[in-house]
């Protein structure tokens, strides 16, 4: 099925190695644990970004509700951690010991049925994948089978994000309300709060992230990825060729949802809480921005975008809280107007050719290097 004979072409390989070196070696060695934990938080958005590259960049489906899936994954994880943190010994001062503290505050006396599966870690991990996946399947089937797409789809996903946020905030007794689920302590008895645990979690997350990158790259290179691109460019032609456009869209949307959910689960683990402020419309659109800045066509770009925008956000809002929104808004407009392919587009257009020229200049036979290099590698990095 794989059309390209090599998994990565040369420039992608360089990108992969550079990212791996940065995340596995440079950042852990150079940052203290607090900053490393911040990077872990930023990288949770990279999961969402990779999903958006598949679904938006390749499939052309702009979802403004990725926060929903991020939140579902995060809440599944947080529910497990919360249940473990509210064991009978830990909560004996409550009127009903053994249930999460916010339930006790809201006069709920027994654990609701939908919380029961989250006693088990296996079921929780399954839920992190399946709940958002199924939810995306339902939305996707309902929308794409009826050929709803483009702007309509974007607005409806936004409405779904609004609904879920209002529901979480409103049902305080079952979800923790606006404060979310706080005070998460242990994972199977292993304390997630001390420094060494944070470092372990960081590495675990980076491993998962690279797993997702490889999976996304694999999808991109198979025939499926080609069909996604074809669909974005000429949907009708793909349909007339006998492919079921709706099914491919549903698949891309579900993959994006699952990636986002993994990111959400890692968020709950790394940051130690989950709240509706990461579910609603505003965070969902911000996640799209990270991807747009990094480059909607580039898997690595999504990771870089999530990292850089968040670093800028933290830096600016620490020192100039007034300026942050101006900066973010301006960045948005600039990226859309001037650089639709984001940072990776700038890289491919301006930096990559210079590097190539430098490399060919060093080689003794320029003509041969030309055929070895860019042409044999197929299309330049997108």
């Amino acid at each position, binding site marked *: 099925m794989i059309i390209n004979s090599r998994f990565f072409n040369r420039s992608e390989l360089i990108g992969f190695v550079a990212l791996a070196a940065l995340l596995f070696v440079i950042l852990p060695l150079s940052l203290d644990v607090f900053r490393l934990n911040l990077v872990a938080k930023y990288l949770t958005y990279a999961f969402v970004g990779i999903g958006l590259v598949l679904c938006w960049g390749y499939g052309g489906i*702009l979802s*403004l509700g990725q926060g929903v899936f991020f939140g579902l994954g995060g809440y599944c994880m947080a529910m497990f951690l919360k249940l473990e943190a509210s064991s009978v010994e830990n909560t004996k001062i409550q009127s009903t010991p053994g249930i999460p503290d916010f339930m006790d505050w809201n006069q709920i006396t027994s654990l609701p049925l939908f919380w029961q599966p989250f006693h088990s870690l296996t079921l929780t991990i399954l839920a992190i994948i399946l709940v958002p996946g199924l939810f995306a399947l339902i939305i996707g089937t*309902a*929308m794409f089978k*009826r*050929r*709803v797409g*483009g*702007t*309509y789809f*974007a*607005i*409806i996903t*936004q*409405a*779904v994000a*609004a*609904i879920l946020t*209002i*529901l979480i*905030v*409103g049902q305080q007794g079952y979800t923790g309300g606006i404060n979310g689920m706080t005070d998460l302590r242990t994972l199977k008895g292993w304390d997630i709060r001390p420094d060494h645990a944070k470092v372990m979690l960081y590495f675990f997350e980076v491993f998962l992230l690279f797993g997702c990158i490889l999976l996304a790259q694999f999808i991109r290179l198979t025939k499926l990825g080609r069909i996604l691109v074809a669909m974005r460019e000429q949907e009708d032609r793909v349909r007339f060729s006998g492919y079921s456009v709706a099914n491919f869209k549903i698949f891309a949307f579900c993959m994006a949802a699952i990636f986002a959910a993994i990111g959400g689960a890692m968020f709950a683990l790394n940051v130690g809480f989950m709240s509706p402020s990461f579910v609603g*419309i*505003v965070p969902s*659109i911000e996640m*799209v*921005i990270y991807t*747009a800045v990094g480059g909607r066509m580039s898997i690595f770009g999504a990771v870089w975008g999530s990292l850089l925008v968040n670093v800028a956000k933290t830096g600016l809002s620490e020192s100039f809280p*007034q300026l942050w*929104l*101006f900066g*973010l*808004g*301006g*960045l*948005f*407009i600039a*990226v*859309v*107007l001037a650089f*639709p392919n984001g940072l990776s587009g700038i890289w491919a257009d301006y930096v990559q050719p210079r590097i190539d020229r430098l490399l060919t200049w060093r080689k003794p036979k320029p003509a041969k290097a030309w055929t070895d290099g860019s042409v044999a590698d197929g299309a330049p990095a997108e």
Partner: protein
Amino acid sequence: MFGDYSIGDLGSIFVMQGFAGLILFSVYVLMALGLAIIFGQMGVINMAHGEFMILGAYVTWLTSSAFQHYLPALFPGYFFLAMVLAFIASGALGMLVEWGLIRHLYKRPLDTLLATWGLSLILQQTYRSVFGAREVGVELPQWMLGSKQITDTIEVPINGIFVMCLTVMITVAVAWIMYKSRWGRQVRAVVQNRIMAGAVGINTEKVDRYTFGLGCGIAGVAGSAFTMIGSTGPTSGQLYIVDTFLVVVFGGAASLIGTIASAFSISQTQSTLEFFMSGSMAKVLTLLAIVGILMLRPQGLFALKVRK
């Protein structure tokens, strides 16, 4: 749920909640009219629409403060001047935005969404820097205060009646502009076939700019009306933007009647439900119903039959 109330009480509840719903309906219609013109006619998703509305609200607030200071004698009538100023301010900003931003993005409708979202962030922060983060409320003139007693159990606030009359007048004016005036005909021609409209001598770029300006100007008037019933803060606009988009999509974009019908049904459902359950659940149920219906009928309530 109905057990504790007598028939007469229930009647009054429905009337009063229905009236509260009508005020919500007015805000929805005013916001959705501008959006229906911009989204329905031009296909541009303007996420900054709420901020254009808030601009109108701030202009109204400034006008009312100015009248209080310098022309207290004319204060009862400040609202009419404020409305005109709000229309001009929002419309002018809208035309500027169209010239600087939107016209480069007509071929990429999804990107207008992102760019205008960036614009809305900038505008919000501008309001926060200029007017402060606290919400401001205008002082209503004497004749708008109080409420009108209709029967023993039913009373309706006067400012609500005023806002509703305003809504009706603006809607009629917009309908006239879009369907009867020469300019409205040009707008519809450009929507249906841009190239042909250009070929018969319509300046399509100019039509685009004025259409966008008109939509934003109506949002400004909506903001002006909004000050009658609520206070204004830098992020008030964002609260309404998704609802308003749903109103437009639910009604079937490009259909004025559809927009009004959907604003009516959504606001009435929500305000009636609000009486019997918590506000958040009422909102969730309403939105769920809209999304559910849109999944069954993606083209909205009143869709124009066009050949694609």
